[in-house]
């Protein structure tokens, strides 16, 4: 079984200040973890993924996330927020699996990121 908890339903930051979106997970297996972003009326876009390689993962648009097994966390950060970052962000877990099997992606409930001018 696996689950994802996004600790904040809404986060508001000023443009140019750092962004922190928090995510904790639980998984019976060594997990793969993703962050996706969803802009209004747009499809989900992959920001970054962790698949048991380097624990600090760099993604698109200046975002990065650090996998911390001891804390079961995978928080998303960005040093300086831009207005275009305003969107819904989803933390996602799936059990590492090299050959199919059951269970798709398990999504968190999402964090709405608001950027103040």
């Amino acid at each position, binding site marked *: 079984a696996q689950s994802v908890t996004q600790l904040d339903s809404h986060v508001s930051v000023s443009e140019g200040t750092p962004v922190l979106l928090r995510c904790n997970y639980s998984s019976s297996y060594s997990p793969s973890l*993703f962050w996706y972003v969803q802009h209004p009326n747009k*499809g*989900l876009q992959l920001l970054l*993924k962790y698949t048991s390689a380097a624990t600090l993962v760099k993604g698109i648009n200046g975002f990065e996330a650090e996998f911390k097994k001891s804390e079961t966390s995978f928080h998303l950060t960005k040093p300086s927020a831009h207005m275009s970052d305003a969107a819904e962000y989803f933390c996602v877990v799936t059990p590492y*699996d090299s050959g199919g*099997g059951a269970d798709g992606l398990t999504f968190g409930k999402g964090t709405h990121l608001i950027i103040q001018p």
Partner: protein
Amino acid sequence: GAGVSQSPRYKVAKRGQDVALRCDPISGHVSLFWYQQALGQGPEFLTYFQNEAQLDKSGLPSDRFFAERPEGSVSTLKIQRTQQEDSAVYLCASSLFSDRVHGYTFGSGTRLTVV
């Protein structure tokens, strides 16, 4: 194609009506997933295809939901006798690989409203 295409973008159905939602994955993608996203929630897994084989349908909420991918490319999600609780955005995703870890390309979804 360049991305995952879903049609229609919007669908309004009267309660009790049957609907069919289409997904055109990226050409050559092996894996195809359907997800249901209720308002204000994260997407929830419905079903998974590897080529034409439906390997997992554990997320389908009732026997009114049926999905197929007969030739291993285009997939259709059918909902019979729609109910108001079926109102949601239905997302399709595809992946080149058959494993789960490489990330997926999502379509923009079909927003279904049952009135």
